[in-house]
């Protein structure tokens, strides 16, 4: 058996895309108070869909499990019930749960509006980098004063 290349899989159907969107919006809802979009906002969800589209097979299974836990209609539940189902999902199916969290957070937390709200500049780390204080090197004085702690060996 050779290492299997990623095989082209059937793209996510419209109903699967709609469910994924409902999941994203339920997981990270909009916050009018903070002026934040939800993860189902079109620009953010487009990114989620792009990631999901690269590996639809891996997306289908968590969606199926979530639907199963919801009695078949996750999107129709109210927000409190969705959160309760998600909590059960996290405990019972940690890897599928993490998969959905992963693809959602990866797109949501690189959005300009979201980064600004966290106090970040909306930019990549390179080339400007960041400042980090040197710190107080005299903190090491007690460590020095104690002397060597290694065992010598020939």
């Amino acid at each position: 058996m050779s290492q299997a290349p990623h095989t082209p899989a059937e793209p996510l159907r419209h109903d699967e895309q709609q469910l994924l969107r409902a999941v994203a919006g339920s997981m990270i809802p909009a916050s009018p108070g903070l002026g934040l979009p939800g993860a189902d906002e079109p620009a953010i969800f487009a990114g989620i869909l792009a990631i999901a589209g690269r590996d639809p097979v891996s997306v289908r299974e968590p969606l199926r499990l979530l639907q199963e836990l919801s009695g078949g209609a996750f999107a129709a539940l109210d927000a409190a019930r969705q959160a309760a189902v998600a909590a059960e999902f996290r405990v019972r199916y940690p890897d599928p749960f993490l998969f959905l969290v992963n693809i959602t957070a990866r797109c949501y937390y690189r959005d300009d509006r979201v980064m600004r709200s966290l106090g970040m500049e909306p930019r990549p780390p390179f080339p400007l980098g960041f400042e980090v204080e040197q710190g107080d090197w005299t903190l090491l004085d007690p460590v020095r004063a104690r002397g060597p702690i290694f065992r010598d060996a020939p």
Partner: protein
Amino acid sequence: MNEPVDVLIIGAGASGAAVAWSLAETRMRILCLEQGGWVQSTDYPSNGRDWESRQMTDFHYNPNIRRRPADYPINEDASPIKVANFNGVGGGTILYAGHFPRLHPSDFRVRTLDGVADDWPIGYSTLESYYAENDRMMGVASLAGDPAYPPKPSVMPPIPLGKTGQVLGRALNDLGWHWWPSDSAITTRDYEGRAKCINLGHCIAGCAQGAKASTDITYWPEALRARVELRTGCRVREVSVNAQGMASGVTYYDSDGIERFQPAEVVILACNGIGTPRILLNSKSALFPDGLANSSGLVGKNLMFHPYATVQAYFDEELDGYRGPHIAIWSQEFYETDSSRGFVRGYTFQCNRGTGPVMNAIGGMRTGRIPWGEGHHAACRRLFDRMSSTAVICEDLPEECNRVTLDPVLTDSSGIPAPRIEYRIGENTQRMAEHAVARATEMYVAAGAYDVHAEFPMRYAGWHLMGTARMGLDPARSVVNEWGRSHDVKNLFIVDGSVFVTSGGVNPTSTIQAIALYVADNIKNRLSNLFD
């Protein structure tokens, strides 16, 4: 058939680069075959807005997830710890944090001092000058005077303590425990054509600034200028032997997938603790039916990983977050054996800064600290930039049941059998990890953290691949001799983590490279009777 070379090195990572550079002064014809390619600094994730996201895809450190064309699959089903590596020029140094401790003198005398495993046939003093030479070549930032080590020189000032290092340093002082800024393969000033660190904070997925020392920007430019040839996209299948039982060269697939034979007078394996035994075990012949250099039966056995525990803590105050080298300080308070602890040997705390917003959200939701739905934003803000983690590097003792074999079914894209890992965590290590988690928790509580949690073992944390072709004086109990030459095949050398007799409780890269330089010096000094 290709033109013969004097020295053929397999693998262009940490050790392959070092041995190539050192041997270059001999003016022998030296060729290195590397299955991956060059990574351009513009390719690294920290160039883009998706810098955290790409660490989970094309810059993931597990090859089974990363699945680049150069990667080979690894059957890890029988191991709780998954392998971390990188296949390309620079090897694992592309995707490491740059934490750069040396082994301690006691690590080479484990049997003598603690009655377990075996002593190394060499000691700290054997490698001391090579450690220093390697620190200069890699450009290591450190603070001289660490009481956990014999005196060692500093090449350049240490990485900053930052808020995280100070908070934890004060706590460790309160506890009376050792700590020190981590020796780091990260330039803190402009050095040998490399720019200094600007705190991108994403060292482990590759450094766009070139401040982190990966061998593609340290050893390789020097080696190439000295006329070493490096051929990329070349995947070695096996080492061949002649009728006299000497290595005659290797069979490999070039970048077009064409099978070629490369004759060589000397073959050096530098593929680390999984790749090296894989090639040896796949090099079967009438003279070596169990794989090359395997008369001891130890090729692939005694795999050591360093099972990692991770302890994460949240604070009310803001720390460094995603800014700065991920690594900050280390503590080796519990490195040396104290039998009252219920285990032998010890561990290092690698105390780290925080994460970016994506990892903050994923980690928080995974552990239930950040809820799904209402409350998500408030919880996310409460945790962001207020986290530190400590990776506990536990010494892993060698056990023959922990091993690399060839998978009977799985192959890479060239049809070469994939490695299969069987690994379990030993009892001594389990007790050590429990002790370490309790002590790290104590440290964080002393530092003022309000929420501390731990995981052991870390699943995707098999960065350190050691022991699968160990060195020793006895051919029945080791694969290579005390200067890296195969006991069975006198023109075959191994210079990577495979030759470790024991693992110590520190990241192995500096020792791997020191060994590579030491073996290279032995080859140079013995040229007239190298095969005797």
